[in-house]
């Protein structure tokens, strides 16, 4: 399993595209927002946690269709299906590789972009914490969506339509935790809910995604 993880990470970094692209997209979205809503620093400070969360979510979405697509096209997914590790493990490793290569850079970059949006000082830690807790759920849900659309020719748009509604609870609890933290309010409840979503999704969705992959390979 660790070999698979290493292979996917190497592919993500070396094949170009996905790795830096997500970060650049995150940066551009963040830069565009002040143009859209005006440069008023008070307003920006208030919406900063939400903007950063939505930006990170969309940047995560960008690289989802690459999770299974290349393996599907060159047939390695079928080899993986006959490999001694169960499909659930493959799916879990794919999600982990996606998180490490696409989501983790976003978590690390978020505070830097927070400066651009005049995020209150108290908010930096909470923003990173909420993103670190929530993005694994985004990767896992996205892996399920990618598994659903792997056999389709142009699945990218459909993938976003399927995955975005599933992202709603994660986004709500994530932004709520970051926003309350930035405003100095108690935010233990949304943080716990966020962690709960991530834990539940990581425990259950690999089974659903593996079942879907098996259907697609049939």
């Amino acid at each position, binding site marked *: 399993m660790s070999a698979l993880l290493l292979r996917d990470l190497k592919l993500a970094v070396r094949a170009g595209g996905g790795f830096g692209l997500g970060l650049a997209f995150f940066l551009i979205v963040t830069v565009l927002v002040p143009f859209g809503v005006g440069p008023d620093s008070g307003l920006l400070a208030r919406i900063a946690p939400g903007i950063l969360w939505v930006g990170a979510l969309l940047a995560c979405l960008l690289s989802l269709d690459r999770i299974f697509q290349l393996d599907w096209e060159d047939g390695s997914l079928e080899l993986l299906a006959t490999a001694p590790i169960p499909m659930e493990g493959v799916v879990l490793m794919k999600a982990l590789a996606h998180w490490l290569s696409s989501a983790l850079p976003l978590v690390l970059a978020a505070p830097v972009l927070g400066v651009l949006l005049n995020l209150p000082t108290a908010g930096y830690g909470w923003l990173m914490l909420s993103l670190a807790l929530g993005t694994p759920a985004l990767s896992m849900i996205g892996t*399920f969506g990618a598994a*659903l*659309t792997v*056999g*389709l020719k142009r*699945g990218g748009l*459909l993938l976003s*339509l*399927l995955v*975005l*509604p*599933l992202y*709603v*609870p994660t986004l*709500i*609890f994530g932004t*709520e935790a970051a926003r309350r933290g930035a405003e100095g309010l108690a935010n233990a*409840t*949304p943080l716990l*809910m966020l962690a709960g*979503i991530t834990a539940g999704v990581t425990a259950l*969705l690999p089974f*659903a995604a593996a*079942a*879907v992959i098996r*259907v*697609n390979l*049939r």
Partner: protein
Amino acid sequence: MSIWEYANPRRFMGWSAPLVPLFSALAALLIALGLVWGFFFTPEDYRMGSTVKIIYIHVPSAMMAINIWVMMLVASLIWLVRRHHVSALAAKAAAPIGVVMTLIALITGAIWGQPMWGTWWAWDPRLTSFLILFLFYLGYMALWAAIEDPDTAADLTGMLCLVGSVFAVLSRYAVNFWNQGLHQGATLSLDAEENISDVFWLPLLVCMAGFGVLFAALVLLRTRTEIRLRRLHVLEARDRTGRKGSGEG
């Protein structure tokens, strides 16, 4: 004889044929009765005036929008466990009806909300969860439309329906947490102390029954169409292979 024998496509076509016109007539009767009763023979609410009468469309459609998703969930489960094709086709047939019901509930709600709340739309938990439900229906239908092989499509949409149901419930509670409501609470519960008055409740009940029967009629009709469509594809495929075979011979 087990109940599952009714799921055999041939038997399904047999028993559902007389039910479609029966249910359609019953639905038309009930909805006409409920709407006429509700619109013309109930008093106007002392605060909301005549705008209250939109509940005879709004509440039944909202109720059906949720119930249809539950029906799709049950049908998907039956397909995934027992592989009855009629079940998968019924889930497929129900989705467009559900999306229309959701849309009716959203639009009638907006029409009512404009004079009453002073806004067409508010990010209220109930309104928001209905919008999310609408998106779930769209995604579900888009996935059906995108996959060519019918069995693969049935499997994948079934899984999506299962996972989506969990997330729909989760979203319902998440948006509750996210914003306080403008929408009134439940007034139709059997155990609540304060409920809607019987004067409004009885025609509403008739309308709800009418919408339920209407859905039954539509879903049977649409499932029959899907089965015929499937048979047509089989015939076409057989025709094509037959011609090829004779050409070679």
